């Protein structure tokens, strides 16, 4: 003890009772791990190896991610019950991460499916930053168009629509000059387990950027209608619509019904006015179309968000929509500066953020079981949702998304 005396100041003396209490406290806290994933490794959802995953370099921009023990089962081990992502910012995605009460069990769903690349998802929004390192590989590429030749190779009425379309400017560049569409797209399909940034609900995806909202986040119903027809004719299976306003529009309803007739799901945000959609419909979430799922927002403890519209008979499900960490454009633009949005990744609130959780799980389920139709996917999402008593009177059936149960 004499050799170590320099570590222990002579002035530090504790009563025996205090020492025992501290020892017991330390042992108790170390053994009491709340809400941790049960995986083969027995580790927390982000292991040290995952956090210290190899960084991308110019020589190796997509390094092979570290393999956690939970992804390399021994021949005699049971299949993993959950799958974690090695993305270093994954721990910030409290909507997907373990520690919130509003647990939508995405990691358990990932044990069954992570790849949605066979299910194109259209994002009707302000565009997408297609160069974002956490999105680029998950952006849809039209196989029937030859880039830059100035011809409408697939004869769909749009020239060189290689990666979606810009309906504001009527050109083939749907780059996000706001931030909203990039954020929504990240929740759906940020590249997962690539050692970069965050993970989307779909680790691999095909996001079709359809820009109809301008740099202020505003757009026209007529452009949204064009985008819906474009998306359906392109062959998407899910459309995410995190926008709203205006009144009933028969032409818009007809477009959504066209999507229904072609087996396409339409996911619509319920609105951010804190209003009762049963009393005053909010559109397009308020259209009574068979393929439409209207989505409210809940917070980390499964309470309806204060800003979220609701509807005991018209809003079909809730999903996390507060403090949602996702991708943003990597180059700061005027809208981001005005709204104090950070480049590359940031948090946002809104039913806009809740809707893409549903869209991502819908794509995940379709990829898991390609035989499922839009109607059966909608039914599965709704019937397998968790019933949350606090949502009584706010959402039909008091439902909140459960990703794992949807795929089971």
């Amino acid at each position: 003890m004499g050799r170590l005396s320099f570590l222990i100041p002579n002035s530090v003396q504790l009563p025996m009772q205090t020492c025992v209490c501290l020892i017991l406290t330390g042992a108790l806290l170390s053994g009491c791990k709340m809400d941790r994933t049960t995986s083969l490794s027995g580790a927390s959802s982000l292991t040290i190896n995952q956090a210290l995953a190899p960084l991308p370099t110019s020589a190796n921009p997509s390094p092979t991610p570290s393999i956690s023990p939970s992804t390399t089962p021994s021949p005699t081990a049971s299949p993993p019950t959950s799958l974690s992502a090695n993305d270093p910012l994954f721990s910030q995605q409290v909507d997907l991460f373990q520690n919130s009460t509003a647990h939508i069990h995405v990691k358990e769903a990932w044990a069954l499916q992570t790849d949605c690349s066979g299910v194109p998802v259209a994002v009707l929004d302000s565009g997408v930053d297609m160069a974002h390192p956490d999105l680029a590989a998950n952006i849809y590429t039209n196989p029937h168009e030859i880039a830059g030749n100035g011809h409408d190779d697939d004869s769909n009425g749009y020239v060189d629509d290689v990666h979606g379309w810009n309906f504001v400017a009527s050109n083939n560049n749907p780059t996000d000059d706001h931030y909203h569409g990039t954020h929504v797209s990240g929740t759906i399909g940020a590249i997962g387990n690539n050692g970069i940034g965050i993970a989307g609900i779909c680790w691999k995806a095909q996001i079709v950027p359809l820009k109809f909202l301008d740099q202020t986040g505003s757009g026209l119903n007529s452009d949204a209608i064009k985008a819906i027809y474009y998306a359906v004719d392109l062959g998407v299976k899910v459309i995410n619509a995190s926008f709203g306003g205006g009144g009933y529009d028969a032409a818009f309803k007809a477009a959504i019904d066209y999507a229904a007739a072609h087996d396409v799901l339409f996911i619509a945000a319920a609105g951010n006015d804190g209003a009762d959609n049963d009393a005053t419909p909010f559109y397009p979430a308020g259209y009574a179309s068979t393929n439409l799922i209207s989505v409210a927002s809940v917070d980390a403890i499964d309470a309806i968000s204060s800003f979220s519209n609701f509807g005991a008979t018209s809003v079909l499900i809730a999903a996390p929509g507060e403090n949602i960490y996702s991708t943003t454009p990597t180059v700061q633009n005027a809208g981001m500066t005005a709204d104090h949005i950070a480049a590359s990744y940031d948090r946002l609130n809104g039913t806009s953020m809740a809707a893409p959780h549903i869209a991502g799980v819908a794509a995940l389920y379709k990829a898991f079981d390609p035989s499922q139709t839009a109607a059966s996917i909608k039914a599965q999402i709704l019937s397998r949702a968790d019933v949350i008593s606090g949502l009584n009177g706010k959402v039909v059936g008091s439902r909140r998304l459960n990703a794992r149960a949807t795929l089971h």
Partner: protein
Amino acid sequence: MKKNWKTGLGFFSVILAVFGVLDWYGWDQLIVSKEVHSGLTKAQSGLKTAAQAPLSPLGGGAPLAKVSKPVPNRGVASTQSPNEAGANEANSGIFREPRIETFESAPVVSASETVPDQEGRFTRVRVLKTGMKYPLVRVEEKWVRDFATGQDQVTHRVEMIADHLILKLDPGYTAEDLVRVVVPLGFEVRATISGGRAYLVSFNGHEPMALEKAAAQLKATQGISYSEPDYIVHAN
């Protein structure tokens, strides 16, 4: 010796308690942050050289000035720059909803207002010149006046393009039929939507009631299934 072993036990107890707290809270909360920052910084430096140029501003009028309602801060404001806030992935405590464009600074082309009824309800219609792709925007607001205080409060608001309507033809009618029917009435076919599934039909929309008059005219025209406003929607 006795004093030393008690002192050592005390020190050991404190260490064990600290370890226990860290183990319960999560080691990754400490270890990840530094690695994340360096990793993201490296990723960002590569990105900035490859980023696409932003779209050029919309044409059609003066730049759109953005005046939006204040965004409630629900936590401690971050003092970091936006790039630092993103790169450091720290929870700044600012919870934001996308702001909604309200066109409050757009020049007013024309306006009209009804007289408040017995309950104080009245309607205000304004035509504004904005920076949207079709610059004329009609803002229709329903208000309630508190006669006791003289305060007015808006209860409902919709925005739409002021000088065109979305129009659908009856089955069997073609685009040529549309032109033949609407042009003599003073309309023009501004755009075709998705191969003729609908059309944008334009008119002189500078006056507040021009849109309602145009809709009534088209409603009475044979071959037209319906015509309705082209509403403006917002990210939410």
